[in-house]
């Protein structure tokens, strides 16, 4: 068991998972924030753009996005992100994970905005705050606190979904496990070690986000 893991790059595979998750989380947060702004804007066309993105991406399997990025966009349309095949797959995996989870980040942020009762905005205007003041002092802080729990869920889902990158040959944790289980006998403990690796990655985050969302919950 220990000897099997010593022959494969166990730590390296999980490091790749962490890298994938980190950069995709950043990307998803950026795209998702822009989408959330679009979806709550007062302009119908911009709202339509945001809604269309969310509905299209949310209903497409991540596997399809992943596979079509490499086989379609990179190979056939020639949209190479890097000349090295491995780096190209890695970068496309980050792009697709970001694009996919951005839809969920957007929904998380929007649900945060939706938790604010109208009275908050009315009260802010009634005491004479300008639009910018009421936005930054009253509304956004509450919206952010209301969206911590769903954002945490999205982050954890993203870490687990980074395994999908293995279908395009990025040798992160799930890909390495598939290789080991196929080549070696006695795969059961190997599976549990990898499963434990994901539990270690996600469980503390889950606990952290739960306690944050409880601690920062807006009393109403």
């Amino acid at each position, binding site marked *: 068991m220990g000897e099997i893991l010593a022959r494969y790059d166990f730590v390296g595979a999980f490091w790749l998972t962490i890298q994938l998750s980190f950069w995709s989380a950043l990307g998803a947060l950026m795209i998702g924030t822009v989408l959330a702004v679009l979806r709550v804007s007062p302009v119908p066309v911009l709202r339509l753009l945001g809604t269309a993105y969310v509905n299209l991406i*949310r209903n497409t399997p991540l596997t399809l996005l992943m596979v079509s990025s490499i086989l379609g966009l990179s190979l*056939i*349309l020639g949209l190479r992100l890097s000349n090295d095949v491995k780096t190209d797959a890695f970068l496309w995996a980050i792009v697709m994970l970001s694009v996919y989870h951005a839809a*969920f980040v957007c929904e998380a942020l929007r649900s945060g905005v939706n938790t604010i009762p109208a009275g908050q905005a009315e009260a802010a205007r009634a005491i004479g705050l300008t639009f910018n003041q009421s936005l930054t002092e009253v509304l956004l802080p509450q919206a952010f606190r209301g969206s911590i729990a769903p954002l945490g869920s999205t982050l954890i889902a993203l870490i687990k979904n980074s395994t*999908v990158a293995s279908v395009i040959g990025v040798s992160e944790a*799930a890909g390495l496990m598939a290789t080991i289980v196929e080549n070696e006998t006695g795969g059961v403990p190997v599976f549990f070690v990898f499963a434990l690796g994901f539990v270690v990655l*996600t469980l503390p985050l889950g606990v952290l986000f739960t306690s944050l969302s409880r601690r920062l919950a807006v009393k109403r």
Partner: protein
Amino acid sequence: MSAQNVLFDAPGPKARLRHNILTVVGALLILGILYLVLAKLGQAGQLDAAKWTPFLTASAWTAYLIPGLIGTLSAAAISVVLAGIFGLIFGIGRLATQRWIRIVCGIVVEFFRAVPVLLMMYFAFTIYSRNGVFLATINPLMAVVTALTLYNGSVIAELVRSGVHALPKGQSEAGLSVGLTPQQTLLSIQLPQALVAMLPALMGQLVVVIKDSALGYGITYMELLTWSKTLGSAYANTVPAYIVAAVLFILLNYAMTKLAGAVEQRLRKRPITAGPLTNTMPNIVQGSAEPGGPIDYLIEPSHDAPPRD
């Protein structure tokens, strides 16, 4: 409360002008994106009629896309039924009066929610094919079903648990006070109400199952994505094949989401339950619920009071 009403005042003349400008900018943006996509596709020759006409022939559908849809839907249907049974058993287990049953069920549920579905799928596939557990032809299907059942069953178990917790306290108190045991109260009073109220969330989970069945691509399960890849090689139209597959997935899942919404609306009109439990983000792949993570926010009793007469 819709976001627009909270964030923005009724627009005055200046704001209306700004909105009109933004409308034009937004429309130009949409057109620009469409143009870029079409130009890129056209440049690579992907818009040629020859790439798209195969989808007008019967054989592309009967030989590739329909078997693909059948593969996807059958894996999803089997998994959803099994996951429902798994979820019910472990959900009830998590509500048991004996402490050790609660702990064991809790560990199982939290474990399978934390492990990526694809990891379980790879593992189950290797184990099944090495030990010849099933016929070689159905090994991939069985691996897909196993992984989807364990993950979604755990999510459903959590739904059952929080569904029961979300019921008004008076329900269990009334049961206990007329002399039912805790088990009887759970089975004949709390669960029936919780299950009805969970229906929209359960249907939302079906979208997750349909999307996750595409992971079967990684273990050569012949579902819609795998079949579209084959179709793409057969007609030399990979990109159009993926676009058609995506459209089919989107239509399928969008219809499911709409159906779940309609069921929720119907439940809201029923005065007898405590209101539907709404799953705010029903279709995140593998992610509606995480280990030790927040799930209660996913299903909370509806805030709009059900109409009473």
